[in-house]
Structures are given as structure tokens and as C-alpha cells.
């Protein structure tokens, strides 16, 4: 049954959109440049869709983020399943009202009479020197908002599977794509990945690393280094940030007794705080060391390369923190 292709994340997401649009005529795509006349998206993620499914279903928009999300919400209430693109995660601040006050809340405020089955795709990540307004991770804002689901894949397979699930989900899903790992290939099984389930990306007995998006790649690199030193990291890829897989993460940390939560967003008040405080509370008396958190420095994302590199958590810092926990 399962056909294994090698695809990068751009291709995997593109395939998921293709498959979802073919499977359900109610699936729509909208956003700046998403149509083929505009090159199928600045990164080509939506390439070919408007040619295949027509410009009625795949619509490029003016630069109007409030109207983009508003149109997605309205169309979803009217029976469709729009996938809206907000080109970069910093621009999510522009239609913030539409996302947090409307998409997230209409189901509840209407007493369940309406619902908003939309997906909001967005891209971000440090690494390309795009600076203070083009590389932030702001998943914490959305995870703190009841009514939104937030996912952030780190592999092509999960990107495909989570996109299919997000589109079929009956609630709004924020779908976070990381720019620097867009071109990393991997096997794609074309299976749905359930929202709300983490994945043990690497088994290990000593320290659990909880991460998502590109930080999973850094965690796996740290694990490689530490394996040579006899320290076995267990890497848990959250995949879904909200609602996150408490049971899965707790099981891993209950086993290792040590945890480091890592994200590319600013550390202070980031999503790592929620996970760390649940771990500390639920595993009271069972932990071998305090839960540690790693995140970006408390500053806007800097432009200059050495600063940008220092700003973002990386494998070396994860490894050093794990070593410290082992000798604590």
C-alpha cells in the first residue's frame, strides 16, 4: 500500500495539497502569489495547483492579510476548507485579530453552530539573515489561544501527513514551515499524521530532548555527538504544539528522568515554559535533574551573521546542556 517517495518538505507539502484538493472539491488555496501566474508561491510550495485545479480554487490575493484570513474564515463557514498562506510568520501579526478573535472563537461563541476548518500555512526561521521582521517563531501566541491547533513538522513525511490531517480537521490549524529545512529530502509515506501526537525521533535512555520544527534536526545532531561520549539522548519531536502530546512527552521523561525543551522562539514565555512546568509538576519526585529550556536570546532576530548564529539554539548548546544534566 505505502509508496515511499523521496521528497523535500516543499515537495511533500505540495503533494499533500495536491492530494487533498483532488480528494475534496471543497479544499481551496489562497494567499499572496499562490497561483502559477505568480510562480506558485515565493518558495514554490503551491506550484502547479492553480493550473491543475483552476484559479477559482487556487486564488492569488492582493497584499491584504486581514482579507486573506477573513476570506478563509468566511469561505469555511460557507462550507469550504481553505488553506491560506501568510507568507512569513512575522506577518501573522497583521491578521492577528482575524486569527485569534475570530477563527479561534467562532465555534465556541456560536455555541457550536459554526466552525472554521481552515489551515493557515506560514514560514519562518533564522539562518538566511532576513533579520528582525522575517524570521520570528511566534507559536506561543497561538498555543495560548483556545480554539487554535498549532503544528510544526520537521520531516517531509510529517509535513505531508500533518497537512492532510490539518485540512481535514474541523478547526483552524496553524501550520508552521521552517525555511532552512525546506530542501532537506526524506521518505514520504503519504499517510495522515494525527494532530496531537508526538513522535520519538530517536530512542535513548539518558536525557529527553523535546523539540519541534528545525530544532529536531539540531537535537538529532547533538545526539550523534553525545552518542560517542556514551550519553544517549531521546529526541521527541512534538509535531503538534497545541494540543501537545502530554502523555507521550511525560512517558519519555518518566523513563529518562531528565529533559531539555528546545525551541527556536525566544526562551522567555515561550512554549517550552508550559512543557517544562507540566513536566516538573507531573513528575514531581521522579526527575533526576531540573528540566532545562533552550530558546533564542531575548532580543529581536539580529541581521549580522555571527549574531544570528549566536541568537538561535543549536546542536552544541543542546549537547552541552545535556552533558551538564548528566553530571548534575
Amino acid at each position, binding site marked *: 500500500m505505502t509508496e515511499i517517495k523521496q521528497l523535500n518538505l516543499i515537495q511533500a507539502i505540495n503533494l499533500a495539497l495536491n492530494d487533498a484538493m483532488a480528494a475534496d472539491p471543497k479544499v*481551496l488555496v489562497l494567499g499572496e502569489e499562490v497561483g502559477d501566474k505568480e510562480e506558485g508561491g515565493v518558495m514554490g510550495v503551491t506550484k502547479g495547483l492553480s493550473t491543475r485545479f483552476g484559479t*477559482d*480554487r487556487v*486564488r492569488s*490575493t*492582493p497584499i*491584504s*492579510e*486581514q*482579507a486573506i*484570513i*477573513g*476570506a*478563509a*474564515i*468566511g*469561505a*469555511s*463557514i*460557507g*462550507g*469550504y476548507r*481553505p488553506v491560506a498562506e501568510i507568507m512569513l510568520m512575522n506577518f501573522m501579526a497583521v491578521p492577528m*485579530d*482575524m486569527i485569534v*478573535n*475570530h477563527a479561534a472563537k*467562532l*465555534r*465556541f*461563541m*456560536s*455555541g*457550536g*453552530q*459554526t*466552525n472554521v476548518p481552515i489551515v493557515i500555512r506560514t514560514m519562518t526561521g533564522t539562518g538566511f539573515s532576513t533579520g528582525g521582521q522575517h524570521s520570528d517563531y511566534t507559536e506561543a501566541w497561538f498555543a495560548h489561544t*483556545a*480554539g487554535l*491547533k498549532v503544528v510544526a513538522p520537521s520531516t517531509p513525511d510529517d509535513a505531508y501527513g500533518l497537512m492532510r490531517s490539518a485540512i481535514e*480537521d*474541523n*478547526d483552524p490549524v496553524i501550520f508552521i514551515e521552517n525555511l532552512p529545512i525546506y530542501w532537506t529530502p526524506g521518505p514520504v509515506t503519504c499517510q495522515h499524521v494525527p494532530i496531537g501526537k508526538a513522535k520519538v525521533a530517536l530512542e535513548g535512555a539518558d536525557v529527553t530532548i523535546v523539540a519541534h520544527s528545525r530544532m529536531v534536526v539540531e537535537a538529532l545532531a547533538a545526539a550523534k555527538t553525545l552518542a560517542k561520549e556514551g550519553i544517549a539522548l531521546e529526541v521527541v519531536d512534538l509535531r503538534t504544539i497545541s494540543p501537545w502530546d502530554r502523555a507521550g512527552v511525560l512517558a519519555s521523561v518518566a523513563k529518562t528522568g531528565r529533559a531539555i525543551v528546545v525551541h527556536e522562539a525566544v526562551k522567555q514565555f515561550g512554549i517550552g515554559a508550559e512543557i517544562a512546568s507540566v513536566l516538573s509538576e507531573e513528575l514531581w519526585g521522579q526527575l533526576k535533574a531540573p528540566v532545562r529550556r533552550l530558546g533564542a536570546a531575548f532580543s529581536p532576530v539580529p541581521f549580522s551573521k555571527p549574531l544570528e548564529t549566536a541568537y538561535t539554539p543549536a546542536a552544541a548548546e543542546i549537547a552541552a546542556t545535556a552533558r551538564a544534566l548528566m553530571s548534575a
Partner: protein
Amino acid sequence: MSNYPRPDAATLLEIYKKATFIKQNDERVIKQMMAGKLVTPYYSPRGQEIIPSALSVSLDDDDYVCTIYRGVHDMLAKGFPLGEFWAELAGKATGSCKGKGGPMHLTHPAKGMMVTTGIVGSSMPIATGLGWAAKLDGKGRVSVANFGDGAANIGAFHEALNLAALWKLPVIFICQNNRYAEHTSFADSTLLTHLSARAAAYGMPGVTVDGNDPDAMYGAAKLAIERARAGEGPTLIEALTFRFNGHLIGDAAPYIPKAELEAAKALDPLPILRARLIAEGISTEAALAAIEAAIEAEIDAAVAASLAAPFPDVTELKRDVFAEEIA
């Protein structure tokens, strides 16, 4: 505007019925609040009844309407069930939103009341999306966005109107210009004298009408609806009107000059239309009195039912956040 379609006698009577229904209901809400029997934020639509009444007679149940906190008139004109309205205002489990939404979020999809928002300006982008859905469906449905004069200055207005025009969506943008946005007078919000002038900024037809005149409002709305159904795209209608009460109940509106308010009230469209119906022989004093009494009885029943209904259980906090119940 001489080429506008005009309401026939039956339609005029229908408009009067809807408007009277809104007015009597509004008066009852305020009465219940004053008596301490209802505690809720409430944004009275008194003075603006004709606008949705003259619009809704040209809409079908499955045409979409989005409105705002001050949207009770829009809802009732569209056929929102009175029992669910009163129960929702009372925060009861039998309310249209199970008591979770309240007056600012009244919703009733069966009659096309899709979204009521408390955020100024946000009705427009969402109504635009409903217009997109309607266009994709290809069944000739239209989508109406109601909003105020103050809302015309917010960014969402601009983005929604441009998108609707560009995509030729079947959307009717109805700016109910009641001369005030909370405490701010229209003249203090923009240099324009007519907000319909903004339609030209999007290549969309725009018109200013006396929203309190059933003929003018009916005609402008009907034309816009027909254009939309025919695939000719959106229209911006600025409907001039006045807000007879404060921004919300409790606001005595000292910022409205007395003379201005009195002049507006002197032109209360309800008695004027009532007198006209009789003068033109469309109805009689007795028939109208009977209609008004029937409305009063319907309100009595809804109020009584709302008082008797149960509150939602606190477990409702876990439902309707997502499709799945929260564990």
C-alpha cells in the same frame, strides 16, 4: 435614484412589520434591563430599523448576513428566532449559542445569520469570504456585511472592499451611518461627507441613501442584490440613519447635541411609515394595532421562556472549543 425599484404595498407592509418588531423588541429589552431582570451589554438599534427591514425583504433565508454587536435589527429582520434571541441574552442553555456567545455573537445559520462580531470592522472580511463561498457554489446567493460609520475608517474595511471588487464577489457592504461611533461624531472621524465616495477607491459602485426611507433603502438594496446575484460584483451602500439611544444602555450620550438628537427623533421613521400605510390605504389603524399586539404577545412568550430556561452547565466550557470535547 429614480431608476430604483420601488417596494409594492405588500412589501411596504412587510417592511413595517419587521421594523416594528425590532422597535418593540428593543423597547422590551431595555425595559427588562431597567427592571433588573436582564443583565447584559446591549447596543440598541433604535432608529435604524428601516435599513435591515427594507433590505431583508429582498433576501432569501440562505443569503448570508454578517453583522456587529449593534446588529439585533439585522438579525430580527433576517428572521432570527425570538426565543433563541431572548434566551441567549439571558445566558441560558436554550439560547442560539447556548449562552456562550451573548448579544455580541448571535448566530443562526438556518436563517443565514452567520457571524456577529464585537470587533469593529471584522464583519467585512468574513462576509467577503462568505461571498466567495457563494460565488463558488454558483447558486446566486449573496452575502451582506453590516457595519457602522466608525468602522469605515479601519483597515479591514479597505482590504475587504478591494478584494470583493477585484474578485467580483456577490457582497453588499452596508454602512449604517448613524452619525456616531461610540462618543465620536462622524465629522470627527473623516473629512468625507459621504462614505459612499470610498467605493470609487476600489472600482465598486457606491451610493448614499436615506436609510430611514423605506423606498430609497429598498431600492438601493434591491439593485445591489440583483447586481450581486447576476455576478456583477459588490456594492457599497451608505445608509444614513441615526442612533436614538446611547452607544450602549447606560450611556446617556451627553456628547450628542440635544437639538441634533431631537431633530433626528422627530423624523423617527416608524410613525412616519405607519401613517403612510394608513394614508395610502395599504393598511388600517386597526390592522396595524393588531400586528403590534401580536408582536407584543410573541415577545411576552419569548421573555417568559427565557426566564424559565436553565443556565448552561459548566461542563460547556469544554465543548465547542474544538470539534472534539476537551478532556
